[in-house]
């Protein structure tokens, strides 16, 4: 099962390689990874999506906590949370196709962030399902390139 871990760490040189090394050294998988500073100075947040059964997830969480630079690990999968991903899509948009793509952009509430004679670059944010749906719809126009950010997630204020 896929898990989303929110890991706050000391913002020190090498902290990313400690986390990445832990995953590779112990045979765990990282699906996506996002790192950025938090509001608190000197503290960064890593949002990691990973796979594993219960026992592996327990080890991943414990091993992350064991790293001296780790402040806190929360498995957001067990909580109500908001999840967002972002994707830039370069798509063929020649002639009449362009209008149809723009209609899809509208429906998905994407943005066109770059225009050329025969291509558009679209910016889309949403959960993984929305991005997958968009990419599927754009497939027939010819998706030339995509670049995706790792997942961002935040615990909802109201938990049951």
């Amino acid at each position, binding site marked *: 099962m896929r898990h989303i871990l929110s890991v706050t760490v000391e913002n020190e*040189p090498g902290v990313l390689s400690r986390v990445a090394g832990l995953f590779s050294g112990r045979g765990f998988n990282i699906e996506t990874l996002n790192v950025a500073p938090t509001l608190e100075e000197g503290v960064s947040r890593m949002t990691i999506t990973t796979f594993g059964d219960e026992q592996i997830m*327990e080890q991943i969480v414990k*091993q992350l906590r*064991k790293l*001296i630079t*780790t402040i806190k690990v929360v498995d957001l999968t067990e909580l109500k949370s908001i999840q967002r991903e972002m994707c830039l899509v370069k798509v063929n948009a020649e002639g009449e196709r362009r209008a149809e793509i723009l209609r899809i952009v509208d429906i998905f509430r994407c943005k066109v962030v770059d225009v050329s004679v025969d291509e558009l670059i679209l910016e889309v944010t949403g959960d993984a399902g929305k991005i997958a749906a968009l990419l599927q719809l754009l497939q027939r126009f010819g998706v030339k390139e995509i670049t995706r950010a790792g997942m961002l997630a935040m615990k909802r204020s109201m938990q049951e």
Partner: protein
Amino acid sequence: MAQLTGAQILLESLLKEEVDTIFGYPGGAIIGIYHELPNYPFKHILFRHEQGAIHAADGYARASGAPGVCLVTSGPGATNIVTGIATAYMDSIPVVIFTGQVPTPLIGNDAFQEVDIVGITRSCTKHNYLVKDVRDLAKTIKQAFYLATSGRPGPVLVDLPKDVLSDSTEFRYPKSMHMRSYNPHTEPHVKQIKKVAELLSNAKTPVIYSGGGVISAKAHKELIELARTTQTPVTSTLMGLGAFPGNDPLWLGMLGMHGTYRANMAINSADLILAVGSRFDDRVTGKLSTFAPKATFVHIDIDPTSIQKNVNVEVPIVADCKKALHALNEEIGRLTDTPWKEKNQGWLDQIQAWASTQPLQYDNTGPEIKPQYVVECIYELTKGDAIISTEVGQNQMWAAQYYHYHKPNTFLTSGGLGTMGYGFPAAIGAQAAFPDKLAIDIAGDGSIQMNIQEMATAVSHNLPVKIVILNNGYLGMVRQWQELFFNKNYSWTCMDAQPDFVMLAEAYGAAGYRVTQTEQVLPTLTQAFAIDKPVIVDVRVSREENVYPMVPAGASLTEMLLI
């Protein structure tokens, strides 16, 4: 306030940490530290290879319980200690390592003797640091000692660029250390402790399975009290030997691949396993699915990652072993109604029966010297009062089986990593910590040649370590596997070109003896142990003797090959 250089700050900090001995090797990047060293009261031991220095720092730590300190230069000096760092890491030994580094402006430029030692050792240290500013140095050293010695201990490395060592600042050493990202949980959960006491009082066939954590937590007294009060038999991992007296009636001997018959049978029949400071390593459990099939598991460990890693545990307790066992003893004290002795008598009788039908044994009737006999002689002469180190392989297993350890910190061996070449420098480190004790390395002819150059160290520092080589002319443990599981295909395990170890010892200025007859073993060892200088005793033992019992890799503990 006076300004001190980085080099001075390092040495002042070591004084604050009450370090008395530094195990090191100088070089270009740390010449500034060595320039200051004569102004300080440290005993510095100069090795012949950096690997010797790191193993000695580790041996010092295992024997004394205090952190060992190792100082080496950048580049090859740093890479030469990686094996020793990994050895200490696997066995949770507190060592603080200082490596030189090229000046900060040159880092990343492939400078002379530059290596990214922080990157290289990230996965085999508890933590490591590159100090980039002399103003961070004192705090970093404080953190390094704090991390190395607290929680689950381990090696911590501090990388010191040359310019940081020559820059100056005021020296302020922190009095205490708090880190928001590091808070080991040491207090046991009260309810869980109550549950364990209850389980123990209801168990019919309980076994305590103790490990190296009991020694590092200095919890041996609590362990002995628990076992004796509740009349629970104790087995131990290789790393845990010495925490429980080897001559106690409740002692089962070591368990696992080369464990005793009674220990492995007891595990197999146990209805309760109380694991303390041990981690269910594969050499201990054999085939996991059949390990202690009838048992409820209690697991006390300071490291949460050790718990639920290999086996499912009914009662996990993350705590310092000493505190947990102390709390458990108090709880047991309240259970005045439990007739411990009567309750466990049948179980102890069963264990006694296993011990008598299949004791540790070897055939000593032939003309050849049996390696087991040599270890027994060492025990007879020292009565468990020596510090024993081992190399890795058959010598290590015989030292674990046939020497009886009565006190913690008297058995130094590379358990987790299995590092050949560990024993001799480790014995040097232990001898440096306890100059008046007898420090003996039980070695094989293969392993001893991995760090034999430290004979010069032992001689020049008057550290009268005794090396007893169980010389069979083979890489004996690998040969044993080849014999048993690879159709006697002795591929490259025969070491037929050997130095003359007696002449070698004499060449270094040490004493050397050769023993070829069984009746010479005891008198020669007696003589060797009485000499106040390093000695090599080259004992020519039976060449194809095997270590038994043996559980083949991946088999169940009950599938022991016996003599």
